[in-house]
Each structure stands twice: as C-alpha cells, then as structure tokens.
C-alpha cells in the first residue's frame, strides 16, 4: 500500500504541470491557424475564413528569400567556426588539467551569460572604432562567439564519458596522434558534435539581438521578422514565414535530441 504511493501524483500537481505545458505550447500552435487566415489587416480571432493563398504569395517574395539566404549563409559559417573552436576548447579542458581551466569555461560561457545587447553594442563600438564596414563577416563574428558555447557544452559532456584508456590503447597499438583522432576520438564524439552543430545552427539562425548591432543594413530572416513586427506591412506573409520558421527549427532540435538522448542531458543545457 505504501510502495505504490509514489506512483500516484496529486491531482492538483497534475493540473498545474499540464497547464504549464499548455501555456508553453498553445501560443506556438496559434501561429499555424493564423498562417491560413483570410484576414489581412488585423489579428482578428476567430479567423473569418481559411485560405492557402498566402503560402504562394510568401513563396514569391524576393525579400523573404534573400533574408533566408543570408541567414542560412551566416548560420553555416558561424556553425563551422563554432565547431572548430568549441571542440578544441572542450578537448583541452576535458583531457588535461592546467592552470586557469575554470577561467576558460567561464570565458566560453560569458557571451551567453551576459545579456545579448551588451555583446551587440560592444562589437558595434569595436567595429566603429576600427572602421570595419558591416558585412556578412561582421554578423558571423558575433554569432560564432556565442555559438561556441553550445558546441563546447555538448563536446565536454561527451569527452567526460569517453574513457581516456581508449586513446592510450590506440597509441599502444601503434596509431599516431592523427590516426587516433580520426579512428578513435572522432567516432566517439561525432554525434555530440553533430548535435552541438545543429543547436549552434538553430541558435544562429534565430539570433536577432546581436544581429541588430552587427548587421548594418543587411537583413537576416529574424531581422526581417523584427521589422515586420515593429511596422507590419503585410501581416499574412509574416504569419506564413513565422509558421515555416517554427517547422524548420523543430527538425534540428528533434534530431539533436535523438542524437544525444543516451547521454546525460546535453542537448540544450543552457542556450
């Protein structure tokens, strides 16, 4: 009688937990309804009618495509840089002990621990100090800085679970350092890096606060969205873009979850 008590949860707790989860998910689902509304000028609920015409109209908008193109380009480069820097840092911190190790983990986490606006304005003032013109690279510079931490977190967690004796065994069997890296270390940390890379991509793809400072006149997809939010021009197109963004970001998150679920919770431990 006692032992099955822990299986049953109080009704009130159940309601509160379910309510909290609904609070988290219903607003996002609402976007899907609005993408098909026939109402153009306001956010009227319930929608007066449903239509799929906005999908076609959004598809034919060149400004959406160019913003999307820039976002993908920036996210790819930033992810690549973050993968290299994050893995190097994680390998150094987890495989060896040295003076200042704690300081390095702090340094890596700092760009997301401090509010994004501070990173943004700091980079902006540095750019103007050195007369660096805004380009794709100024955006990448900002994004890569805070993407390092996601790759780092994933890689460090995996390195901790990878036994050091594997590396020693490989060396004992005659492999040189590069062979060991290619045949032993890389297969072990591969999925963690893939997951970290996906999350870094999602983070960069979605970033808006730092980008407003480092982008100049260029518009990534979030910047395009932000402009639509502040000064709505064609609301239905914004609705469609919002829905597509939700769908597109869900995929890498689900994939990252399935890649890392056997391990401890690493996938999104701290954005």
């Amino acid at each position, binding site marked *: 009688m*006692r032992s099955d008590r*822990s*299986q049953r*949860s*109080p009704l009130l*707790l159940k309601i509160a*937990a379910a309510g*909290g989860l609904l*609070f*988290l*998910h219903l*607003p*996002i689902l609402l*976007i899907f309804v609005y993408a098909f509304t026939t109402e153009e000028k*306001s*956010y*009227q*609920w*319930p929608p007066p009618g449903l239509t799929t015409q906005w999908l076609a109209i959004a598809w034919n908008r060149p400004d959406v495509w160019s913003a999307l193109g820039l976002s993908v380009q920036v996210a790819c480069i930033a992810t690549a840089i973050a993968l290299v*820097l994050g893995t*190097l840092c994680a390998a*150094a911190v987890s495989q060896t002990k*040295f003076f200042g190790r704690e300081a390095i983990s702090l*340094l890596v986490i*700092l*760009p997301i*621990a*401090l*509010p994004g*606006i*501070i*990173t943004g*304005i*700091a980079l902006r*003032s*540095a750019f103007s*100090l050195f007369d660096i013109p805004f380009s794709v690279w100024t955006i990448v510079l900002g994004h*890569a*800085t805070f993407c*390092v931490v996601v790759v780092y977190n994933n890689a460090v967690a995996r390195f901790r679970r990878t036994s050091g004796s594997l590396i020693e065994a490989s060396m004992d069997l005659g492999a*040189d*350092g590069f062979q060991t890296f290619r045949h032993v270390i890389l297969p072990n940390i591969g999925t963690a890096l893939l997951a970290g890379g996906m999350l870094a991509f*999602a983070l960069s793809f979605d970033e*808006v*606060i730092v980008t407003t400072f480092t982008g100049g006149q260029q518009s990534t997809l*979030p910047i395009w*969205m*932000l402009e639509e*939010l*502040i000064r709505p021009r064609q609301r239905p197109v*914004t609705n469609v873009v*919002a829905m597509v*963004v*939700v769908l597109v*970001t*869900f995929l890498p*998150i689900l994939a990252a*979850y399935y890649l890392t679920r056997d391990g401890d919770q690493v996938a*999104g431990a*701290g954005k």
Partner: protein
Amino acid sequence: MTALALTKPAELSETSILPGRGGFFGQLSDAFWRHPRLLLFLMLTPPLLWLGIIYIGSLIALLLQSFFSIDDFSGLVNYEFTLATYAQLLSPTNFDIIIRTIIMAALVTLASAVVAFPIAYYAARYAQGKWKALFYLGVMLPLWSSYLVKIYAWKLILAKEGILTWIFEKLHLSWLLDGILNLPVVGGNSLSVSYLGTFVVFVYVWLPYMILPTQAALERVPGNLIEASSDLGATPSQTFRTVLFPLALPGIVAGSIFTFSLTLGDYIIPQIIGSSRLFIGQAVYAQQGTAGNVPLAAAFSVVPIVIMAVYLWLAKKQGAFDAL
C-alpha cells in the same frame, strides 16, 4: 651472470622502442606525444584568441567608453576621463528606467519559479519512460523555437481583436478584462500595450530556462526523503516547506540567473509588447542609435553587468552552480 641479467632488459627495451615516425605528420604526432603542453597550447590558442580578442576586447573597449562623456554642443565624444556619464544614470528619468527594469526582472523571475515548479516536479518525480521524454521535449521545443515567433504569437494573442479578448467575451467575463486594463499601473488600452502584457510575454519566453535547472535539482532529491517526511507525520505542505523546497532551491536560483539576466538585457519584448516607457535594453539601444550617445549607452550597459555580478556572487553562495 649478474651482468648478463642486467644487460638483457636493456637489449629488450632497445628493440621495443621503435624508431621515430617518418614523414611530417608522423614527426608532428611524436612531438605532441613528447610535449603534451605544445598540443595543449595549440588547441587553446584559436578559441582563446577568438574569445579573448573579439569578445573580451570589445567588451573592455565598451566599458572604457563609459568613462568618457559626450559634448552637449557638438554631439561628439569627449575623450577625457570623467564620471559625469555615470552621474547621468542617477537623473530621475534614467534612474526610473533602471528601477522599472529591476522590478520587472524580479517579478518575472518569481512568476517563472512558481509556474515552473509543478512542471519540473512532475517531470522529475512522476513521469516515467515515454512521458519523461515527452516532458523533456515539451520544455526543449519551446526553449529552442524562434524567439521572435514566440513574441509574434503573443502579439496575436494579446491584440485587442485577438483570441484572449474573444475568450473573455465567450465566458461573459469581459468586465473582468476591462477591470484589469483599467488598473492604474499595469493596465493600458489593450493587453498588448500594457505592463501586464510585457510581464506575461517575459514569463512565457524565459520559462523553459527556469524549468530545466529546477528539474535537475529535483531529480537529485531522493524519493524516500519525501516518504520519510510524511511517515514522520508532516502534512504535504510541511514536507514542501521543510524538505522539498530547500533541496530544490539551488536549482531555482540557477534558473533565476537566466530569467533575471535575460529580462534585464532584453529590449525587443518591451518594444513590441508594452507601454512606451523604456527598459534598460531599450535605453541602451536608443542611446547608441538615434541619440548617438555611446558613453551613456555604455554606462547603461554596465548596470546589468554589475547587477549580474552581485547576483552571481549571491547565487554562488547558495550553491546554485552545482545545479546548473
């Protein structure tokens, strides 16, 4: 005899030590093996250069600017050391902005903790197998889905013609909504231009950051502690106050680091959903952008840094970092 015995191991080891590897990569690999510090140095240099120069460098450059001031007539930055810009922070308008932001951050943190606790507790203690995965994804997906889309969704919900007004109408509770909107400080013309709206959106957007560390802390509370407490005659609320809550506190404090810091620095949510009164983030943005007063913007951005430093120090004393 003894000499032979002594030389034998030497011969053996001579054959067991292979000659150094040939080729560039082979030699490089050997060099790394003999000098692990060299490898460490090479591994650490790129990330440290990047973060140290690009990030810390610009951060320091920004902080230095807060000690300059702006010439009121020419609008140019006067490069002399002064604390005048910091004094400007204490002027009534600017000080209001700071206080408003801190109060909002504190309330958002409190509300997130209250909403997050049942979800985290259920996920940590009762959810099993499939349900556990569902809860995890249920928190992860909103956490990682687009920040702007989430704000946009709330713009749709809170709009005067939106779903919330409609729900209140259907439930014949329109008087309640009007009553809330007529409240002196938190109300406004519609929810999307009121403090209340800003508050709800802040809680919504940062809630997952509170759930995850709270859940992590609760996972570590052994179930038999709760059972022991009730066996010893404690009511559920006593168990919560004296056993569960103190053990969960480090996790809640860890989560509050995120909710507090993110609210302090955000400038997009209050800009899109909220009254026209500024928050720190908006003040920083306006000062460096339209006003062109970079020193004041820099001084403003020092405020969240200092608050967060104090907060982190207090959190560390609470043991929150072990729960991260």
